[in-house]
């Protein structure tokens, strides 16, 4: 559910930023980076979101350590308290327990966060590698190659990823976090490649690019050393928002039982058994893992927003 509208809307502004930097690549590059940092930190929420996300990541990835330090409160995913199954929040189980074996939901949220965040970031790294290469090739070379590559991109953009992911998950068999990240990555690259392509279409016409070509610099070097740094703004923004997007998608797919499976837990798979007992009013089981997703995605969206503002000086706030 990546908002193509927002990303698309900003790309125009970012091109201008690239053009400004284009006059003198090395010097401006540094000042642009510094400028970006300052703008980002002056964003009212982005820096706090970054801090909060940092804490969340440390909390989740530190889960095995917390388990060692506080064995009574933080249980490993293969531990459970049968007798406490289906009980609400208490001092012992901060977020209550599930109705099956009595897993501590708080512990599952911590442990599960590792896979949710991993899948979010991992999938977008894959998507970025494919998307940048694909989009840059299409945008830089243009013409027939561009038409062909973009037609393939269209194919992926035309079917909702929501429908393709469960289908792909069945092809891949048992879903490990790596496989899920790979599937998500393979389905997320087209939006990035589109952004990169539109950047490259205008960047390659810029004077510095033409100059480089005239000097006989190889295409690969022009693409990666000269053009790409100028297109990095929109890519970073799309990358960030894509992470948020994939965390949400993972939660849904695992909730339906197509994604991460026990004994591995992600935020989505923690919720998997919850709908069946919803009528019994086990609100804690549904609420807390979902809130973890909301908080994480909120932070990432704030960060994405901050990055957008920071990388694009022209935006009206």
């Amino acid at each position, binding site marked *: 559910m990546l908002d193509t509208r927002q990303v698309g809307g900003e790309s125009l502004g970012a091109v201008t930023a690239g053009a400004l930097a284009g006059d003198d690549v090395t010097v401006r590059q540094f000042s642009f980076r510094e400028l970006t940092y300052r703008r980002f930190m002056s964003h009212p929420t982005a820096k706090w979101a970054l801090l909060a996300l940092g804490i969340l990541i440390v909390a989740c990835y530190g889960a095995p350590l917390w388990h060692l330090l506080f064995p009574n409160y933080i249980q490993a995913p293969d531990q459970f308290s049968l007798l406490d199954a289906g009980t609400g929040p208490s001092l012992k189980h901060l977020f209550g327990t599930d109705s*099956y*074996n009595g897993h501590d939901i708080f512990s599952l949220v911590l442990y599960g966060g590792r896979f949710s965040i991993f899948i979010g970031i991992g999938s977008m790294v894959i998507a970025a590698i494919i998307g940048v290469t694909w989009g840059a090739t299409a945008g830089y070379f243009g013409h027939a190659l561009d038409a062909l590559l973009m037609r393939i991109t269209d194919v992926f953009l035309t079917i909702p990823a929501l429908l393709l992911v469960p289908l792909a998950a069945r092809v891949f068999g048992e879903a490990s976090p790596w496989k899920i990240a790979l599937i998500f990555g393979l389905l997320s690259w087209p939006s990035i490649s589109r952004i990169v392509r539109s950047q490259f279409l205008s960047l390659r016409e810029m004077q510095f690019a033409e100059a480089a070509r005239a000097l006989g610099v190889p295409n690969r070097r022009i693409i990666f050393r000269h053009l790409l740094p100028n297109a990095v703004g929109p890519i970073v923004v799309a990358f960030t928002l894509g992470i948020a997007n994939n965390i949400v998608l993972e939660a849904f797919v695992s909730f339906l039982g197509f994604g991460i499976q026990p004994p591995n837990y992600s935020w989505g798979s923690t919720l998997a058994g919850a709908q069946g007992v919803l009528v*019994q009013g086990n609100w804690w089981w549904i609420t807390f893992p979902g809130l973890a997703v909301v908080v994480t995605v909120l932070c990432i969206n704030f960060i994405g927003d901050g990055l957008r503002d920071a990388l694009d000086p022209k935006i009206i706030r």
Partner: protein
Amino acid sequence: MEESIRRWWSRPTVAIGVGAMASVLLAACGGTNPGNTTSASINSSYSPAKGTTGGQLVYSDWEPVQDLNVLTSSAQTTLQVAVGPIWSALWGFDAQNKPIPDLVTDVPTTDNGMVKKIDDKHMDVTIKLKSGLKWSDGSALTANDVKFTVDAICNPDVGASSQLGFDHIASQEVKDSTTLIWHFGPNKSGTCGLSSDLTSGIYSPYLILGLSVTVVPQAALSNLAPKNWATSDYFTKKPTPTSGPYMVQDFTPGPSAIVTLVPNPNYAAGRSGAKFFGHAPYLQKLTYKIYGDKSSQIAGIKSGDTDLGLDLIAKDLPSIQSGWNGKAVYANGLLNEGIYMNLSNNESACKAQQYAETCGTPTVFKDDKLLRQAVQLASDLDAMNTQLVGGIGKPMNTFLPSTLSPYYDTSAPKFVRNVTKANSLLDQDGWTKNADGTRSKNGKKLAWVISTTSGNPQRAAEEELLISNWKDIGATVTTKNWPAGQFFDGFTNGGINATGQYDMSLYANSFAPDPDSWASLAISSQIPTAANPSGSNWDRMRDPKLDDLLTKGENTIDINSRISLYKQAQTEWADYMGYFGLYERPDVFGVGNNFGNFYPTANTCVSTCNAADWYKKGAS
């Protein structure tokens, strides 16, 4: 949920005995002694109340109904309206898995002379229909229709969901309009789906065939090519004529399907004076309604929108019971959740070798009986029952469920978890304890992988519980789960269990009401191979003693001898320990206060075999 069961029978087995009645039934079959005569041990004690005529009842499920094909469907939702309400069978089964005659005058047995052993390879079973039976359109229902139905079941173009047992019938002989003789005898490969030649036609579990023969009308179907039956109006829209107490007035398929049923005016013809189902249907209208999802079905039960809710499980009990004045009843039956150990090689990397038994790496369970016994002893069946099955499942004591009378060994010791004994078995077996609590033998760690159907929170919870149980005996167990289709798929399709690509599996089997239904899981000739791909001994059990007992059980018609054979088999199975049952899975029903004669007959009857006796309390 329902798709996670491996069905041994065309009619998915559901349950047996209403909760409150279960203990009574147990006491009753506990009293069975081997001295009883044959017919006594299979006489049904089903005795419905006399109903009042009139009124309307609504019963419901939550999973979709796509068609009304009583011959091909393996969907429980279809059978719940097809078997009983719309079509009558030769005979059904009661809560103790004893046959109740329906279209027939008497259930064939050796005692009443309707089952005759001719020689070692041949036997005859006489099907004697009540005389004067009629189809709903008034035409006569005859022995020819029965013959036609059996032929249809054996015709591959029809696609019947199970041909099990019918492949033993060598020929059918229509004596007169109400008498049909099934000549059981040797058959050639290809007959009725046989994959190899059958040398003997002796088939002692013949009783299970009665419910599969839900007679279909020859007159209406004979001019239609069998391959077109599945899409015909008869099976997808409005079946006319039919033989059950009710007939379809209107049917809308899909996830919110509805079947409107009205009384069959000719149902009582030929039935008057019969001990069972000897009367016209009571209700003016019977509606079968699909809610599309369980939450709304439960809401429907509690609001009185539906008078009977089928297809619920233990986890739903709290949801139904809170704030409702109806009855939540449950029943345990022939649907057993169990642990299956691969006693041969794990064939995970043997696709190229066509999963030949010589390929692969031996599992820890291969040739290690003591380990297998220890694994069972360490499993906490009681905790699983109380925590995960709402306390209404029945932990299993032998491989047979406790309600399979008269074969279940009532003297079998009750299962008690015993970690100390399990540990000492392992010590004795050479599995030495390491410093970190794990065990090893000859440098090999005590570790295996457990597999089940993926995306199923109940099963995942069971796995977790067992894994923690087995940690107590030093076993390191990890999981690898598969989509149900792949997990249960056949040998030729590379199914995980069929090809032996597992160490240990967790799933449920649904059995026919005869102990022979378990035999194909254990007899060594049933081990699936490229030459015998339909073999169903997925555990690769190979116990000569068990082979012998189970084969004899299939070839012995005398019930008393069979009882004794299966008691020995239960003892031997417990010792050999290839598969062990975890619990008899309970089926839960929400029954409204005005629903009369709801009798969750179990097994293949999916609780609807006695629909003719359903009535509305307080109707005038």
